[in-house]
């Protein structure tokens, strides 16, 4: 009935929006849920792995400690290489069906999706964080060591805060990639945006109209996310002005100074 009413392109778009908007919204919600959780967990994993992989092997370490650290590093390297070196779509199949067959664990598609995106992002973020850490000037480590701070104190209060600020653009990259790449999870029937679009398109034989809408929804999501993360970046840079405090000689001096230079 209503289908008969739609004959032109615009009418079809209007009809699909009207009929399927709750589905699109749900699909977009699931896409966001999976990519947001996956990016945050992956970022956390990346920080932990990046920090471990940059622990310097001290000559003072005893044999056991050295061997242990080398073993851990080797395992982490394997993890990174395997998950960076295989397509996420294939990982999804292997993990989802493998868990069911070998371990008899029947994951719900959404949890499986979150798990896959998390460990996949973790592998990339581990290298991004490591890059961020080794790009920090050696002088920062030396200065911290020279006042007696240990490696971990230096890492957590001096180096990591600077490294994280520097890798925020890369984090924003990962997030955007994740929003788009959750579409491959349709292979394990996660009902995210792409999966829902496919059903809607198939039911009406209207591929162009449906996927044009899908396209716009994806873009709105990614654009919003990049804007929000850019805002965080600016926030982390700290205030661009500072106050000169009154001294004993000039107690009334309370001047605000703008930046001399921006890094």
């Amino acid at each position: 009935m209503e289908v008969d009413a739609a004959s032109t392109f615009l009418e079809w778009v209007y009809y699909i929006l009207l009929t399927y908007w709750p589905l699109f919204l749900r699909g977009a919600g699931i896409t966001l849920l999976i990519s947001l959780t996956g990016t945050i967990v992956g970022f956390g994993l990346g920080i932990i792995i990046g920090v471990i992989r940059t622990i310097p092997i001290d000559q003072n370490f005893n044999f056991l400690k050295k061997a242990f650290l080398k073993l851990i590093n080797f395992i982490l390297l394997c993890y990174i290489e395997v998950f960076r070196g295989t397509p996420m779509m294939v990982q999804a199949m292997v993990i989802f069906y493998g868990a069911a067959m070998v371990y008899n664990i029947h994951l719900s598609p959404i949890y499986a999706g979150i798990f896959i995106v998390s460990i996949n992002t973790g592998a990339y973020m581990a290298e991004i964080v490591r890059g961020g850490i080794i790009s920090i000037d050696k002088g920062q480590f030396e200065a911290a060591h020279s006042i007696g701070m240990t490696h971990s104190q230096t890492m957590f209060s001096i180096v990591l805060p600077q490294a994280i600020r520097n890798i925020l653009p890369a984090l924003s990259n990962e997030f955007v990639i994740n929003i788009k790449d959750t579409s491959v999870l349709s292979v394990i029937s996660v009902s995210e945006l792409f999966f829902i679009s496919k059903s809607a398109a198939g039911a009406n034989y209207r591929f162009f109209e449906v996927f044009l809408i899908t396209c716009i929804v994806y873009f709105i999501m990614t654009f919003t996310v990049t804007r929000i993360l850019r805002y965080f970046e600016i926030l982390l840079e700290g205030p661009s002005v500072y106050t000169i405090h009154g001294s004993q000689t000039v107690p009334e001096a309370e001047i605000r100074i703008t930046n001399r230079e921006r890094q």
Partner: protein
Amino acid sequence: MDKIIEVRHLKKVFGENEVLTDINFSVSKGEVVCIIGASGSGKSTLLRCLNLLELATDGQILFHGQDIMQHDMSNAVYRAKMGMVFQQFNLFSNLTVLENCVIGQIKVLKRKKEEARKKAMVYLEMVGMAQFIDAKPHQISGGQKQRVAIARALSMEPEALLFDEPTSALDPEMVGEVLKVMKDLAKSGLTMVVVTHEMAFARDVANRVVFMDSGVIVEDDVPEVIFNNPRNERTRVFLKRILDER
């Protein structure tokens, strides 16, 4: 006199390159020792060995008679007693001026926040940077950065302070403000070891001047002798070249 640091037969090798050969010298409490010499003579390496930023290949470094290269003393404890000021300042760029001077006291000396802040303010006031406590390092000038770096080292209340060419990375007009702070510190009786190219500073402020050339200490004497009547030919040639350039 009470010897704070004593170096015996110190040797440092980078690969095939022997940078320090059999270094022997000592620093007593309250002394200001300036180390001079051409680039590549091993001055900075010696200083970095004293603070364990480089591990010496061979020899002994005694701190109050105790060998610090044996592991009976933790590196962190020793380093906290031996302050260091770098050529490139190396202020923590994610922290404000005040936080730079507070963090070591809290993390290493386990001081209370309020106490650490008070101590930091005393030293920031001393170097004339108390007004800038809220500034980030990239917002202040080179001379100001170096003065904050000195305050950061002093906040740890070290027994001796090592300076690694503290004015070499500064614009000429900022050298004076840093040297003035260092002169005041020397007068206050702080033990200092200064690697420097500022000959006037070495002549006027140092109790002793050490001249190094290709990894060995050539001459170690009071400034009057080194600058007016050097005993070694190499010292004479170096000083002539340096002073003629001025």
